[in-house]
């Protein structure tokens, strides 16, 4: 594909977008995985959210806010 004398600049712009978006996407995915692991570890230790405890006790929760 011939993009003329400024082809390098055009490709650089598209590459900058791709690199930044991939980095942001990776950060979000890795952060999400780390948080899910932490949450699972807490639950394995028997730590429960307040709302989960109320559900277990069979009482309807007045205002779930986590």
């Amino acid at each position, binding site marked *: 594909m011939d993009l003329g004398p400024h082809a390098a600049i055009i490709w650089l712009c598209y590459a900058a977008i791709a690199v930044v*978006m991939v980095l942001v996407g990776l950060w979000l995915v890795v952060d999400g995985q780390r948080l899910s692991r932490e949450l699972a570890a807490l639950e394995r230790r028997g730590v429960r959210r307040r709302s989960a405890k109320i559900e277990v006790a069979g009482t309807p929760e007045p205002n779930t806010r986590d």
Partner: protein
Amino acid sequence: MATLTQRLANPTRFMALSRRLLPLALGAAVLLIGWGLALSFAAPPDYQQGHTVKILFIHVPCAWLAMGIYTMIAISSLGLLVFRHPLADVSAKTAAPLGAAFTFLALVTGALWGKPMWGTYWVWDARLTSVLILFFLYLGLIALRSSLDDEVLAARLTAVLALVGVLILPVIKFSVDWWYTLHQPSTRFTSTLDPSFRKPLWVMAAGFLALFVAMHLKAMRNEVLRRRIRSMTLAATAQANEAAPADASGTAEA
């Protein structure tokens, strides 16, 4: 009876809803950006700018998102300060790094585009400088938030800063009309933009918007998880502290 916003403000409900919406937004982003790229590279060269007009299809959506995301942060901040909406703070906090990323990309692609068109990467003209200030505002929001340990205070102060900073948006929008700038005046997309460039631009803009929605939903889900972990850790620590003095007194009695 709870209003729609009150029902959606529930983090548990948000997590269930976002789990279904996230793949849809991501799928739409991939399809639209793929289509937009095909249209962009098939678009004819501009009679003045040649092929560098292809930078328009990525630079303009980034610039629109840079301003749109800040508007969303300001609305979320208002939601936090006025209605104490729990998800409004999550939304504002998680949108700031994404807004910074899109503003950074608007600045970088604009600077690169400027070299062949203006003969320079950067000039301190009103449009470029006001967008740079917007970028610093995003960094300021992120820095202020992370500099305070008190989550509630950090959220309120950041919301106030976001609302004050919203003044930069009309300056950016009208800078090309109010001052003489090297940046071109506002493009009227239905009259001054050649029809062959309109479709790739709109498709790319829709794709970038879908990508932002997907990333924002993911970032919000992460933040809700982070807050759950924090509250669970605090609860576990409080329980351990309550149990410890009882154990200690039991040992002393023995």
